[in-house]
């Protein structure tokens, strides 16, 4: 019984949150890695792209809510998501057109593009704050829980409850769908294969008649889909605040690099590695331990390895370890 209780606590505070946070990171890191694979630079504006996409979706959500449109028990945001994606894709394509394309044609060094993306980040950041403000916004509606702690206790008779938030379930399901669709696209369709070809060997792709501009456009659209989805899911699960999306940059980059920059599968694995490390290291294990250990050995400290304020230190440490020992990442990405 104690073991079961411990497992429930673990699932409740570690497994489920890490799984949903990991999914959000994985989606974000996928965007980073795709852009890196095709356009060959680390896009610092990706976090703020997520914020932008989420913001547009929120505005649509509010509009739908005002009109009384609802898809309960699912959150209205899910209905607004496609609209958010379309607007974000338009924004990214426009940015590419007026900003990035010039440097691509100049064959500028990647670091210049990184710096340019920083400028874009600035601007997106400003736009988001001007439109929706720097504060926290709530936009979730529909069912709150798939199962809440009380129901779970009644169902199982266990002492510990397990709460499975709707936003967490939604995150996991949407991520599975998005990732499956992405891999189907990359592995099975001609367009997707041409993207991989371009990422693998740009010059040879040109010699095969692949149109680079088209590949780039598709990449931005995919990035918009992934970023908006990730941003909305994160916002539903936690809350929407522009600055937190900037802070997500580090874990997302870490995830992409851990997996191997440019490698989509790696980005997903990396996302979960980062999320699980972050959550397990910042979780107070006291409760789990009390179930496992005899009362005499019960810990009196919280058994928390790191305060949650340092969760970014976890991604950073993992990043540093990977850079030192395996700079290509776990799944050999593109050149170091």
């Amino acid at each position: 019984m104690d073991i079961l209780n411990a497992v429930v606590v673990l699932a409740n505070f570690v497994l489920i949150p890490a799984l949903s946070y990991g999914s959000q990171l994985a989606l974000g890191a996928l965007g980073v890695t795709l852009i890196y694979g095709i356009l060959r630079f680390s896009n610092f504006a990706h976090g703020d792209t997520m914020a932008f996409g989420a913001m547009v979706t929120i505005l649509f959500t509010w509009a739908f809510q005002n009109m009384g449109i609802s898809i309960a028990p699912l959150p209205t945001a899910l209905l607004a998501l496609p609209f958010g994606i379309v607007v974000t894709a338009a924004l990214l394509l426009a940015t590419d057109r007026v900003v990035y394309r010039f440097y691509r044609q100049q064959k500028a060094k990647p670091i210049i593009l990184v710096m340019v993306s920083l400028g874009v980040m600035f601007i997106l950041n400003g736009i988001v704050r001007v439109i929706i403000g720097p504060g926290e916004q709530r936009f979730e509606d529909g069912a709150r829980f798939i199962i809440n702690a009380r129901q779970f206790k009644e169902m199982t008779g266990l002492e510990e409850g397990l709460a499975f938030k709707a936003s967490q379930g939604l995150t996991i399901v949407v991520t599975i769908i998005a990732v499956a669709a992405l891999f189907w696209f990359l592995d099975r369709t001609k367009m997707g294969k041409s993207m991989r070809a371009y990422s693998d060997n740009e010059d040879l792709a040109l010699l095969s008649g692949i149109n680079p501009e088209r590949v780039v456009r598709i990449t931005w659209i995919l990035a918009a889909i992934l970023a908006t989805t990730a941003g909305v899911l994160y916002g539903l699960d936690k809350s929407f605040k522009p600055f937190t999306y900037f802070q997500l940059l580090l874990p997302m980059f870490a995830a992409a690099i851990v997996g191997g920059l440019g490698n989509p599968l790696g980005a997903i694995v990396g996302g979960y590695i980062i999320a699980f490390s972050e959550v397990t290291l910042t979780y107070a294990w006291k409760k789990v331990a009390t179930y496992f250990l005899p009362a005499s050995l019960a810990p009196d400290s919280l058994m928390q390895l790191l305060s949650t304020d340092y969760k970014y230190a976890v991604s950073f440490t993992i990043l540093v370890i990977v850079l030192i020992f395996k700079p290509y990442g776990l799944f050999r990405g593109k050149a170091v």
Partner: protein
Amino acid sequence: MSGADPQMAGKPEPFLIGEAMTGGYGRGADILHDCTIAVDKGQIAVIVGPNGAGKSTAMKAVFGMVDLRLGAVRLDGQDITALTPQARVAMGMGFVPQTHNIFTSMTVEENLEMGAFLRQDDIRGTMEQVYELFPILKDKRRQAAGELSGGQRQQVAVGRALMTRPSLLMLDEPTAGVSPIVMDELFDRIIEVARTGISILMVEQNARQALEIADKGYVLVQGSNAHTGSGKALLADPQVRKSFLGGTE
């Protein structure tokens, strides 16, 4: 050497000609100086010369990957000097670069598919033909091309270029890094391809063997035509033998 090839005078225009090409990379110095390369329908033309002579550059110039300051490239009588490489692919030119000529992370089959990217029709027939030409590739079709041996990679590279069903195939040192046996194999395959009516323009390090199968040979030195003639004539030319073929025989 003057640009206009004296032997061409009066003859009908060759299938492909890069005429009096002068140019280089970006804003750097010219690499090619008044260099002319041509190949007739269904024939094999071979470019030889010392390292750094500009052989690869000449190939790239013909394919539109080097900006020409002077000169022109014509395919089947049509001026294509201003076309992008992709447009040249669409016009029936295929190019196998000297290095990085396969998609290493993709399977052999996907490499071939990418070769046929511009085609809208059914490509399975062509793929079968490539597999007939290079049977080993059929066995390895699901393997990542980067995991193949050097010789097999070259086969993938040539196969990829054949997938567009080109009327002109350009090969930059297709036998680089392969064993003599495989090299003979590859040469045989190349002759086979030429027999189907595809013109072949090829750069070769193994000058003697290449000139033996060549209808036409070009010796490039420092970006200029040093010697031009039929493969046999060049092999017989004492000066060419002395300076480029190690002239012992």
